[in-house]
């Protein structure tokens, strides 16, 4: 039976990691995600499941510990918030290049620079368009509830191992800090070394008796080979786009207007949908759950039905570019955002719909 608890998003992520049979967590504290590390240290999973929990000396060290664990086929996690994620970007690019599975949580705060500790979604570009160097993509999951903070650990690892690619859970200070009811999955036993060796034939689990050395690297000095590797990565990202796009729609069937919002902004838009509909404005919400792959086709499918689309983001206008690309000029698209750690209110969102889309 599933267990019901009241938890913060950050705690739910940490508890879900223990229960998913994660082998190692490597992190460094930063507000507003420090509860992940605090919770793990308090629960001491190393005494129960054998999961390693380690506060590294820096974010750079933590992401390279993730690289090492992932290279051995282990389920490894790290978490941070925006400035810390920037520090991890080199390692994330290496993980993508070396095709290593890992789950990376970013509980986004306002930037640029050290910015503010309050919630933001201003790392959308960084998460979905690279962030690190080189032609790569992360699978990016955007939780909008504490339940999804827990669920996306398991989903993240399923995808990370299926495609041998790092997965980012792009959360924010609202989802990380709030408490909601959460149903937790039962404890999964950590994989044995034999199971890892059997399930991850690519992993560096020891020199095979008959066969070539297994080498995990992101370095290839022969450009012809590197181009082949780049094609392989691009084909993988194409397959991910075809297979793994996830989104949710609320009140879209009869909608004249559409909100597109992810994470905590999507929660605020749900309330805005209720307020607007009470005023007679038929608006729906499309919530991308995967930010890469982006639900472009789903959004485009509304471009004939609706008279306008408003993206609501806690940033200066980032996802709006992907929405514009999705509908390619077929319908009016505008952006409404608050930033610097300010959270838009549902009333403000309705007003923005009225001024920027309906009356604009």
């Amino acid at each position, binding site marked *: 039976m599933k267990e019901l608890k*009241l938890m913060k998003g950050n705690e739910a992520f940490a508890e879900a990691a223990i229960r998913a049979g994660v082998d190692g967590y490597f992190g460094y504290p930063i507000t*507003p995600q420090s509860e992940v590390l605090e919770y793990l240290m308090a629960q001491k999973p190393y005494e129960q499941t054998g999961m390693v929990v380690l506060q590294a000396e820096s974010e750079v060290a933590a992401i390279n510990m993730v690289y090492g664990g992932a290279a051995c086929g282990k389920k490894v996690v790290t978490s941070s918030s925006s400035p810390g994620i920037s520090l991890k970007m080199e390692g994330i690019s290496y993980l993508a290049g070396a095709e290593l599975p890992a789950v990376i949580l970013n509980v986004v705060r306002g930037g640029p620079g050290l910015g503010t*500790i309050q919630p933001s979604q201003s790392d959308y570009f960084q998460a979905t368009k690279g962030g690190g160097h080189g032609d790569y993509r992360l699978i990016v999951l955007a939780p909008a509830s504490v339940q999804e903070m827990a669920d996306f650990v398991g989903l993240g690892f399923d995808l990370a191992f299926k495609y041998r690619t790092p997965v980012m859970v792009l959360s924010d200070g609202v989802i990380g*800090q709030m*408490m*909601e009811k959460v149903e937790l999955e039962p404890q999964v036993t950590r994989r044995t070394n034999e199971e890892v060796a059997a399930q991850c034939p690519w992993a560096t689990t020891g020199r095979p008796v008959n066969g070539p050395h297994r080498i995990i690297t992101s370095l290839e000095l022969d450009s012809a080979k590197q181009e082949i590797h780049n094609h392989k990565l691009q084909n993988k990202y194409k397959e991910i786009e075809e297979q793994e796009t996830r989104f949710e729609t609320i009140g879209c069937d009869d909608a004249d207007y559409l909100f597109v919002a992810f994470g*905590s902004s999507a929660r605020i838009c749900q309330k805005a949908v*209720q307020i607007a509909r009470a005023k007679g404005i038929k608006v729906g919400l499309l919530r991308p759950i995967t930010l890469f792959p982006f639900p472009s086709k789903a959004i485009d499918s509304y471009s004939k039905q609706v008279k306008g689309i408003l993206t609501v983001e806690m940033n200066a206008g980032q996802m709006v570019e992907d929405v514009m690309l999705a509908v390619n000029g077929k319908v009016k698209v505008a952006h409404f955002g608050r930033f610097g750690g300010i959270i838009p209110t*549902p*009333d403000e969102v309705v007003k923005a719909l009225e001024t920027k889309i309906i009356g604009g």
Partner: protein
Amino acid sequence: MTEEIIIAGFGGQGVLSMGKILAYSGIMQNQEVSWMPSYGPEMRGGTANVTVILSDERISSPILNQFDTAIILNQQSMDKFEKTVKPGGTLLYDPNGITKHPSRTDIQIYKITAAEAAAQMGSAKTFNMIVLGAFLKLKPLVKMENVEKGLAKSLPARHHKLIPMNMEAITKGAEIVEKV
């Protein structure tokens, strides 16, 4: 049923834990709940507030600008949140330390002298439970047996001996809340 509540006061008054006990009580009777605190610099010695939502349906926004009920425990919070109560909504406050009393005429205003009652009971720590008792008298959203279960869930086992005292404080709050 959906009840949207803001609880606001000083850090250390038990604002966040009161919200947590209310949220846990909601879970005990199968409601959807959310608990969204202010965090960061304002927590450290300044004001603290938490938005708690109890509902029979899936909760939309955990962040709100209007509330069915505001529970206000210091002057700064009065200045900030009196205006956020929905017309016809409820404002519950402790007059202790309040210099500018609420003046709106389109809402129901109640007072609870919780700081005074907690001092009389000999335990300042029961303050927030007296306030919770007053709130539950005005809005009986959760059954007392579920509040008791909520307390047991949100307090660590070593503090379970304090549950009877907390329940007594809740009863006290329900007795002494008055309409203004």
